C-alpha cells in the first residue's frame, strides 16, 4: 500500500489524496480480480475433486483440457440469467443481502499477508479484524433468509445465525493460542515469529488441538459439510438462498469459496508457518516464492475441506450445537490454559 502511494506520488506527480485513492482503486481491483479467479478455480477444483471421489470425471469438455473453462461458462450463464425477485419478497433487503454477504468476506482479504510486504493493510489487530469482519456475513444471510419470504430460506437463515455465532466462540478461543505464543495479533508478526522459531503446530501438543478446533470451527463458519445445515439440500432445498438465482446467487457462491480461502489461509498462516518452509529460507528468495508456498498450503486445506464434504454425512442441528459448546469450546479453553502453562514454564514438546 505504502509502496503504491509512493509510486503514484513519485511517478505520476499527483497529490497525496489522489495517490491514496489511486492506490486503493488498484488494490481493491486486483483483490477483486484475485477473488473471482480464485473462486472460479476453486469451483472447478471442487467439481473435479468430487467427481474423482465419486468414480466420475466431472467437467471434461468446456475449454478443452479437463473442462478448465467450465466455471467461466457458468459465470457467463449466471450473468445472463433473468433477474428474479419473488413477488412478496422484501425487495431492498433481497437486493442488498448478497452484497453484504460478499463485502464481509471480501474485507477480510485486505488484512491478509500473502508474503513479506505483500499486504494491503498491515492491520495490527489482523487476526481479530479478519474473524470480526467475516462474521458480518451472518447479517447478510439473515437478511437473505428473511427477505426471501420463504419458510425454507428462513429456516436456513436461523440455522446459519445459530451455527456461526456458536462456532465463532471456539474459533476465537483457538486463535488465542498462537497469539499467546507469539505475543502479537498482527498476522505478519506471527508469520515472522514462525520463521525464527519454527511452525507453531510443533510448539506443543495443545497447539495441534487448537489447530484442529479452529479448522473444524471454520468449517462450520464456512457452512461446509458436515456443517452445511444452513443450505442442507436434502432438508431445506437450498436453505437461505433458495429463492436466489442468477448473479445474486453467484455472490453467495463466491462468498462461500472466498471464506473457505480465508479460513484455510488462517490455518496455514497461524499454525503451519505461513510462507515459511522448514529447512529452506523462503524470505531470502524472491517474493513470489513465498506467495506460492502460502497458496500451496492454503489449497491443501481447501482440498481437505472438499474431501470432508464429499465423504461425511451431515450433522443434525442439535448435534452441531452440542459439538460446538460441549466439545470444541471446553477443549479450546484447555488449549489456551495448557499453552499458557507451557509458555510460562518455557517447556518445549519437540526439540525445535
Amino acid at each position, binding site marked *: 500500500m505504502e509502496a503504491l502511494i509512493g509510486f503514484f506520488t513519485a511517478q505520476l506527480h499527483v497529490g497525496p489524496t489522489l495517490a491514496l485513492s489511486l492506490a486503493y482503486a488498484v488494490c481493491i481491483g486486483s483483490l477483486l480480480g484475485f477473488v473471482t479467479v480464485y473462486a472460479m478455480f476453486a469451483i472447478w477444483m471442487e467439481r473435479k475433486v468430487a467427481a474423482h471421489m465419486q468414480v466420475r470425471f466431472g467437467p471434461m469438455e468446456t475449454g478443452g483440457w479437463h473442462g478448465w473453462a467450465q466455471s467461466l461458462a457458468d459465470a457467463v450463464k449466471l450473468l445472463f440469467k433473468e433477474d428474479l425477485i419473488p413477488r412478496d419478497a422484501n425487495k431492498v433487503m433481497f437486493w442488498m443481502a448478497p452484497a453484504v454477504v460478499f463485502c464481509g468476506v471480501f474485507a477480510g482479504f485486505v488484512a491478509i499477508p500473502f508474503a513479506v510486504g505483500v499486504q494491503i493493510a498491515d492491520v495490527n489487530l489482523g487476526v481479530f479484524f479478519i474473524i470480526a469482519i467475516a462474521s458480518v456475513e451472518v447479517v447478510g444471510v439473515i437478511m437473505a433468509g428473511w427477505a426471501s419470504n420463504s419458510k425454507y430460506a428462513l429456516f436456513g437463515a436461523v440455522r446459519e445465525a445459530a451455527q456461526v455465532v456458536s462456532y465463532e466462540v471456539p474459533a476465537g478461543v483457538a486463535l488465542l493460542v498462537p497469539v499467546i505464543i507469539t505475543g502479537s495479533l498482527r498476522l505478519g508478526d506471527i508469520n515472522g515469529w514462525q520463521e525464527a522459531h519454527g511452525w507453531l503446530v510443533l510448539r506443543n501438543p495443545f497447539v495441534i488441538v487448537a489447530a484442529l478446533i479452529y479448522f473444524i470451527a471454520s468449517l462450520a463458519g464456512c457452512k461446509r459439510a458436515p456443517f452445511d445445515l444452513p443450505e442442507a439440500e*436434502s*432438508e431445506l432445498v437450498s436453505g437461505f438462498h433458495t429463492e436466489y438465482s442468477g448473479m445474486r446467487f453467484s455472490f453467495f457462491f463466491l462468498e462461500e469459496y472466498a471464506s473457505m480461502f480465508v479460513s484455510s489461509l488462517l490455518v496455514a498462516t497461524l499454525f503451519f508457518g505461513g510462507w515459511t518452509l522448514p529447512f529452506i529460507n523462503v524470505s531470502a528468495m524472491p517474493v513470489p516464492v513465498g506467495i506460492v508456498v502460502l497458496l500451496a498450503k492454503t489449497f491443501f486445506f481447501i482440498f481437505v475441506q472438499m474431501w470432508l464434504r464429499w465423504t*461425511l*454425512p*451431515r*450433522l*443434525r*442441528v442439535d*448435534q452441531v450445537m452440542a459439538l460446538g459448546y460441549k466439545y470444541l469450546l471446553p477443549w479450546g479453553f484447555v488449549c489456551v490454559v495448557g499453552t499458557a502453562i507451557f509458555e510460562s514454564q518455557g517447556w518445549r514438546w519437540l526439540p525445535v
Partner: protein
Amino acid sequence: MEALELYTVDDRADLYTEELKLNLGPQHPSTHGVLRVELKMDGEIITASRADIGYLHRCAEKIGENVSYLQFTPYTDRMDYLAACNNELAWSLTVEKLLGVEAPERAQWLRVIVCELNRIASHLIAFGTYGIDMGANTPFFYAFREREAIMALLERPSGGRMLYNYVRPGGVAHDIDEAWLPDVLAFCDEFERRWAEYNQILTTNRIFIGRTANVGVLPREMALAWGCTGPVLRGSGVKWDLRRDVPYLWPYEELEFDVPVGEGTHGTLGDCWDRYWVRMREMMESVRIIRQACQRVPSGDFMDKNLLRQYKTPLKPPRGEAYLRCENPRGELGFYVVSEGGTSPIRCRARGPSFCNLSVLDALLPGCMIADGVAIIGSLDIVLGEVDR
C-alpha cells in the same frame, strides 16, 4: 382430508414460539418422488404431520380391469419401478394360480435369479438415496455403479434396463444366453467386495450412526399393528419373510438363506439404523441365494408350452378369484384378481408394501426434528409409483 390446525397466539399461556406450517414436497429433494408431507413445526421440531399422496395416481388397478392378463404385466413394472421383476413375478404367479398352471422348472430358477438381482438393485437405490438424505453424496455414486452392472445383466435376457416385462404368466419371456450365469456369478464376487466398501463409507460412519440410531423408532407391536412389511417390519425385530415362511416359488424352499432382522445395534430396536442395516444385509443374502440358484438352473423350457400357444389369443382363465403375495424389496406385494371367464379380470387390486409402510409416517414424525423427518422418510424406502399406483 382436513388441513392441520395451527396454534394461534392465545392458545397457550406459557412461552412458546409461533408454529409454522411447512410443505415438504411434492417438489422436494428428499421425499423420494412426489410425496407431499404437510408439517406443523415448532422451530425445528415437528409437532404434527400429514402425508398427502396421490400425485402419481395412474389408475393402474383400473387399467388392469380393462386390458388382458398378459397386457397388464408391463403396467405392474411401473408400479414399483425400482423392483420391476418382483412386481411381474407377483402378477404372473397370481394369474398362474388363477389358471392353475405352473411355470417350468427352468423358468422358476431364472425367476429367482432375476428377482434377487432386482432386489439388490432396489436396495442399492435405498442405500444410495439414504446417503444423500443424510448429506453424504458419494455413496450414491458407488451404489449406482453396481446397479449399472445389474441393469446390464438384466438387459441381456429381457432387453430392458429398468422395466423388463420379463417374468410373464407361464414362465419368462426369453431364454438366457450361454455366458449369462457365469457373468452373474462374477458380479456376485465383485459385489461382495463393493459391499464392504459401502460399510466403510456410510454404515460405520459415526455421524451417520448419530443421525439414524434412536431416530424414528418403530416398536415391534406398532409395526405389526400398522401392517408394515419387508425391511421395515424386520427392522423392528419381526422375523417374517414370505420367501422363508410362505414360499411362493418352490425353489426358495431348497435354498439356504437367513432372514436378517433388526437388533438395535446402536440404540433402540426398530430405529432408522436397524431398517437400513436390514437392507444392507439382505443384499448379501440375495447374493447367497443367487450363487446357489446359478448352480441349480436346469435345462428345459423357459415358458409353459401350452400357455405360449394360448398367447396368440388373450388368456381366458376360468371363473374364480386368486390372491397371492410376494416378498418384494419393500415388503409384501399382493395381487387380488377376480375372473368371470373373460379376457380381462373384473377385479384387479394390489396390496402395495410402500403404501402400507408409508402409513406409519404420520405416527413417527411428531416430536422429531426436520432432519430426522428426512431420515425417517428415507428409512421407510417408499416408491411413490407404487404408493399412488
